[in-house]
């Protein structure tokens, strides 16, 4: 009986192919939208965590001020000094490298080209902590760091803005009133998770920036990398207690600096993208629901159109539940076909859009399954009302229906 009813439903769907397709379209689009949104969202989440790990794994950022994140609100908290970096390096074990960082935004000039970019003053430790690789040239010599010589390494974006297709090694660029020799070129890293171009940068020795650009001995941030396998939490606690000691913070007072773990940033950002994914998925689910209403509409029309047929079935002895089942199965078959086509469309559109948005395509068996089952469930829910109407028809009236 069930098998026959299924065949009957398929036959009925084929009998009215155009209408069936239009009915299915709502479900198709709904399912495809849900799956595409969630798949792209998952891809974006994945992309964020990949980019954050490109910042350098096990990285701690120590900044003055209490605010978390990128705010410049140091609220009177004193800046760090080079000595703080040296103290961390000497007194805390299991650390990879400790890089003091100070940065300024300046305009740099080479021949007729000029470009406004961020100049970072640091030590060679900056390259290992930040996961930077050399594309050409060399890093700073010990003497250059000690004396604060005017040498620099360029990020790929800065190089292309100033030098076009040429190699910059050995050339001089002008920053404010001084000339600076380009000794190295960094390999491109691409956009950061915040959307900032990481390659739009110039790196100089810390002392050079302090003397020639900042005019003071301040260090804006300490980048600390923790050795592989060592605990970042322990390192974070040790840095905090050392800094409290060095900055003479009383036990009752709160820190006037903060230590941020890249993993924390990663968690923060991916929880944000996850939330957005859920939101988009929910919006798409509404369209799926609208598709269900479309199915109900068509099924109601179909019941009216086939009143006579229902009358014949009832006359030859069909039970109420058999007629109900027939129309219910028809609705479920319709919505399942929509769901199946939606899964196919979602696969195609996810691959294309993931490529356009430059996020990885991640096939999620779970969301595909859930969306498909949801579409079938919608067939049951929205098919039930028309099916019940069909089952409850009076056979005499139904047979008389024109």
């Amino acid at each position, binding site marked *: *009986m069930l098998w*026959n009813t299924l065949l009957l439903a398929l036959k009925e769907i084929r*009998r009215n192919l155009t209408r069936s397709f239009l009915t299915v379209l709502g479900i198709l689009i709904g399912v495809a939208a849900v799956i595409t949104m969630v798949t792209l969202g998952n891809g974006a989440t994945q992309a964020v965590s990949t980019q954050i790990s490109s910042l350098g794994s096990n990285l701690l950022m120590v900044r003055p001020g209490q605010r978390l994140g990128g705010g410049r609100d140091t609220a009177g908290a004193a800046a760090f000094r080079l000595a703080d970096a040296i103290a961390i390096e000497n007194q805390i074990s299991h650390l990879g490298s400790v890089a003091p960082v100070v940065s300024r935004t300046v305009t740099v000039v080479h021949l007729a080209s000029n470009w406004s970019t961020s100049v970072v003053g640091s030590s060679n430790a900056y390259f290992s902590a930040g996961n930077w690789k050399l594309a050409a040239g060399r890093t700073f010599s010990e003497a250059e760091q000690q004396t604060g010589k005017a040498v620099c390494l360029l990020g790929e974006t800065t190089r292309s803005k100033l030098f076009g297709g040429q190699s910059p090694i050995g050339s001089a660029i002008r920053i404010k009133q001084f000339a600076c020799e380009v000794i190295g070129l960094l390999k491109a890293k691409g956009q950061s998770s915040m959307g900032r171009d990481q390659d739009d940068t110039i790196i100089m020795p810390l002392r050079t920036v302090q003397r020639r650009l900042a005019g003071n001995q301040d260090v804006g941030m300490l980048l600390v990398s923790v050795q592989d396998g060592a605990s970042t939490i322990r390192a974070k606690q040790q840095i905090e207690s050392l800094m409290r000691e060095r900055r003479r913070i009383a036990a009752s007072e709160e820190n006037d600096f903060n230590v941020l773990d890249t993993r924390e940033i990663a968690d923060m950002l991916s929880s944000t993208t996850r939330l957005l994914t859920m939101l988009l998925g929910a919006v798409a689910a509404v369209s799926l629901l609208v598709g269900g209403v479309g199915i109900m509409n068509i099924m109601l029309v179909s019941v009216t159109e086939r009143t*006579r*047929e229902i*009358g*014949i*079935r*009832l*006359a*030859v*002895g*069909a*039970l*109420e*539940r*058999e007629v109900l089942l027939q129309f219910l199965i028809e609705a479920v078959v319709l919505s399942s076909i929509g769901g199946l086509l939606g899964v196919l469309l979602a696969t195609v559109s996810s691959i294309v859009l993931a490529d356009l948005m430059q996020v990885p395509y991640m096939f999620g068996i779970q969301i595909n399954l859930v969306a498909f089952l949801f579409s079938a469930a919608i067939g049951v829910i929205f098919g039930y009302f028309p099916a019940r109407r069909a089952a409850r028809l009076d*056979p*005499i009236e139904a*047979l008389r229906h024109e």
Partner: protein
Amino acid sequence: MSPAADAGQSDHPLIELIGVTRTYGQGTVAMQALRGVDLVVLEGEFVAIMGPSGSGKSTAMNILGCLDVPTTGSYRFRGIAVEKLSRNQRALLRRHYLGFVFQGYNLLGRTSALENVELPLLYRGEPPAARHAAAREALAAVGLTEWERHSPAELSGGQQQRAAIARAIVTHPAVLLADEPTGNLDTQRSREIMDLIVALNRDRGITVLMVTHEPDMAAYARRIVRFVDGRVESDIRNPEPA
């Protein structure tokens, strides 16, 4: 007097209508279609039900076909009080004991003659092989063997009514209820259909209840019941069925 004395018929009452009334609507707009009908039909009878339109013959037919129930009074089918049965129980009664033939054939469109005839068996849960065999046999009985693959639109009126009769008899019902079976057919086709129904009654012992307003068609029956104003006006035996 009762036609029960006729040879070849059993004394067992298949159908009993006892003081049956049927009222549509309520209060001042109430319309009494049947005003107290008593009728006994024995197994194997061929009864024609006649009467002008509005006489209640169609209402009676609906009740006899278990599609409707009396407002008051009782309808006993093989001793079972049909008015006490649920909708589904009446559907099962139709499924197992009744076959319907309508004036407008009422075949499923875009569905082959074979599948149309198989329909009642489908609801009986017969396996496909048994369904096909029984449906082919019924089609052979009405002379449509070569037309089993054709849909109603590809069949003539007479052929469609034959297919409908095949559908009605495929379950070997106790009663065949025919509502103006020749109403849409010309004289020649009408005669053929009537001959078929007479043969089914005679050879298979199927009880036939047929509504008609044509005396020519009623003449095929062995008993003619005439309805007027919701009552049985006359109930006569036809000594020489056509």
